[in-house]
Structure formats: C-alpha cells, structure tokens
C-alpha cells in the first residue's frame, strides 16, 4: 500500500467515533459525524531548485527537470479541482544587504499536470500564471501530480549568496 493511501486509511480509522470515548473538548455531539469521506492531501514532493547559476546568464529549469518543484494532490476520485499559483517576480538574496534581488519568470509551459500517474513526460503543460483545472484520477489512483519550472536572470553584477522566494499553489475543491 502506498504511503498516502496508508495515511488516508489510518486517518479514516482515527475519524471513526468510538463508543465511550470523548469526542472532543466541549463534547460537541454531532461534529465528528460529519467528518467522514475521502481526505484531501497536497504534498510538496520537491522545491524548485536552480542550484548554482552563472552571473549574467539566464538559467531555466524545465518542469520536466530534476530541479522542478513538484506536488502530489490526493482527493476524491474523478473530482475536479482548480489549480492556481501566486508567483514571485523577484527573488531576494538572504545573505546580502537588503535590496539584492534577482528576477524570476514563468512561461506559458512552465507548469505541467498529470492525472493519476507520477509521470511528468506525459503531463499536460499550462501557464502557471493563468492556472488550470485538473481532474483527480480514478479510484485506483485518485491523484493529480503537478510540476513547475521557471527562469532566473541574474545580473552580471549579482552579489553572491542564496536567492530565494516562495511559490504558493492553491487547490480548490469544486
């Protein structure tokens, strides 16, 4: 049994009310009765990592590359979800004085999603700035896999150090 599925099974076991046991602080009867059904999990599998980049040269990580950011979404079989991003435009050097930044950009095919299987090669490309709608897999594999790449453009005078930022992915269950 895969780890996410095992976790789901264990969680469902936790959610089953047991006679004689407290159902929570305040004894709110009926609350746990609603806590049933499939669980929803978004797991970050890897961060988007450009590694060391040369100054003055744009560096791109494709969504198919090993350094791409990746998520796994698990939920109700065949359900639709919307996938949207909050993307940074500048990365900040956290080892230099304030104001040391680097542009980062995302293109029309910088993101990919795949239904059911963890296979980026067969995934559908989309523009992360516009988002997309995905469909979770069938009962055997109720997953969506998601990847993102991007391009950084360090200036020739870029200060050495670690440049970082945050990508926020939002999954809305429909």
């Amino acid at each position, binding site marked *: 049994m895969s780890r996410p599925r095992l976790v789901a099974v264990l969680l469902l076991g936790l959610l089953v009310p047991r006679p004689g046991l407290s159902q929570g602080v305040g004894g*709110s009867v009926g609350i746990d009765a609603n806590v049933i059904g499939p669980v929803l999990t978004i797991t970050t599998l890897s961060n988007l990592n450009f590694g060391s980049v040369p100054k003055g040269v744009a560096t791109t990580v494709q969504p198919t590359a090993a350094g791409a950011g990746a998520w796994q979404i698990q939920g109700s079989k065949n359900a639709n979800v919307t996938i949207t991003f909050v993307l940074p435009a500048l990365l900040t050097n956290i080892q230099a004085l304030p104001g040391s930044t680097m542009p980062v950009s995302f293109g029309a095919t910088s993101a990919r999603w795949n239904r059911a299987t963890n296979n980026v090669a067969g995934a559908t490309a989309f523009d992360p700035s516009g988002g997309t709608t995905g469909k979770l897999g069938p009962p055997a594999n109720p997953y969506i896999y998601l990847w993102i790449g991007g391009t950084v453009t360090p200036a020739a005078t870029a200060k050495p150090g670690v440049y970082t930022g945050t990508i926020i992915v939002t999954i809305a*269950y429909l």
Partner: protein
Amino acid sequence: MKRTGLSLALLWGAAPLAGQGVVIAPHAVFMDARTRSGAVLLYNPNTEPVEVAISFFFGYPATDSAGIIVVRTVEHPDSTSPSAASWIQAFPRRLTVPPLERQTIRLLASPPPGLADGEYWARLVISAKGGQLPVTGVADTAKVRVGLTLEVRTIIGVFYRKGAVYTGISLSGLRTAVVGDSLAVWARLTQQGNAAYIGSAHAALVDSTGKTLAEMKAPIGVYYTMEPRYALPIGALAPGRYRLRLDLSTAREDLAPELVLPSPPVRDSVEVRVP
C-alpha cells in the same frame, strides 16, 4: 532555525523532500442552525511540523467562456448573496501541527438575526507551510544559488443550512461536437431552490443498439448557472448516428448520504452525427 539556515537547508537539500503537506478531512463541511458548528481535522504525516493558517472567503464554482470550471471569488458580496464568510469563524486560526499528530479546527457560525431559511456558503482556505529540512551540504558563499520554496493552500466548501432547504437543477442547451479524438459536451445547468445542487454528472455515448461506446462521470456543484464542457474519449468513431445521454443526480460517493440534499434525476439526450 534562523531564516538563513532554513533557506540553506532548502537549497542544499539535494534529495527530494520526504513529503511536506497536511491531510485534510473532510473536503466539504456541512453545518446547520441547530449545532452552528463544524470541524476540520488536520493530520501531519511527516517528520517535521507544519504551520497552518485558516481563513474564509465567499466564492463558488462557475464556468468561464470555454466551459472550464473555476472558483469565482466575490470579495465584497452584497446583502443578497448567500455568503457565510463573514460570520463563520475558525478556532484556532493559526497553529502548528506536530509530526504524526492531528489537530482539529472548530468552526463556529454566528449568523445575523433574522437570517432567512436557506443554505449559505463560504470557502475555507487552509494554508500550510512545509517543515524544515536538514542541511545536507556546506554553503559556498562565493556562488550565486537560487531556490524557491513551495507553499500549499487548500480550499474546501463550507455549507450552513437553516430551516427548510431544498435543491434541484434544470438542464438545457445540450450540444456536442467532435474535437479530435474526443466528444465535447456542453450543457446549461441552473440551480433551483435555496441550496446548491451537489451531485454527479454522467454522460454516455451510445449507438443505435444502446451499447455504451464512451462515458464519463464527474461530481458537480451548481450554485447559480453554469455551462460546463465535458470531454468523452471516443477514439476513431465510425461514421454514423449516435446518441449522447446526460444524466444529473444527487448521488455522491464521496459524501455521506445524509449530507446530500436529494433531488429527482434530470436527463436529456441529443443526437450525435459523425460524418
């Protein structure tokens, strides 16, 4: 851990993450005027803590001009909107879920006095920041290194029901088109009653003998009017006449039956000609 240390850890963690995220259940919360409360359970299956923030907004699934289902957000709903976003609160709103532990978010509704019977909606946003990763390398301060961390936000529906609630749906404008190796299906769906239509759509392409050649099934939620586009994989279909049947029902495998408002099934069909 200081911010720099955390970022270094993220950047030099050469191995893929062991997995950062939080398990959320259920994926829709139903509350009523009797208890005015609900709960969402979070479970952290990882070895690092997860920071979680909770918020609400008013929004609902709708379709864009291409028939794609999106969440339409209404930042300032007017008084006629069935929004519960401003009077449902979460406790706590910020928390840290330790590794391999669960935490319960309690939802409490404080509706305005004189609220009319019906169903009111909100969207619950669960923002989760991943855990800290161990440093697996040594920084070379002469180099330029770049990495981005990923955060996740999960949005689920919250439904508050007061008094007599009922739902239904009308189906019109069913039409199809062969697009490549798929059959595109469009229909206009309009919610009836004072509650959202939560159900399933089942489309099937049948031949003259009634044999099913292609089908698809998807959960739907119709809050106002939407015109979704569905696609059935049909491959290389032989020229001829077929029939596309679309069935809408309130059956949902992922929701407990007592949470789903029942409504009679609605069906329609249309002829499909493949030249």
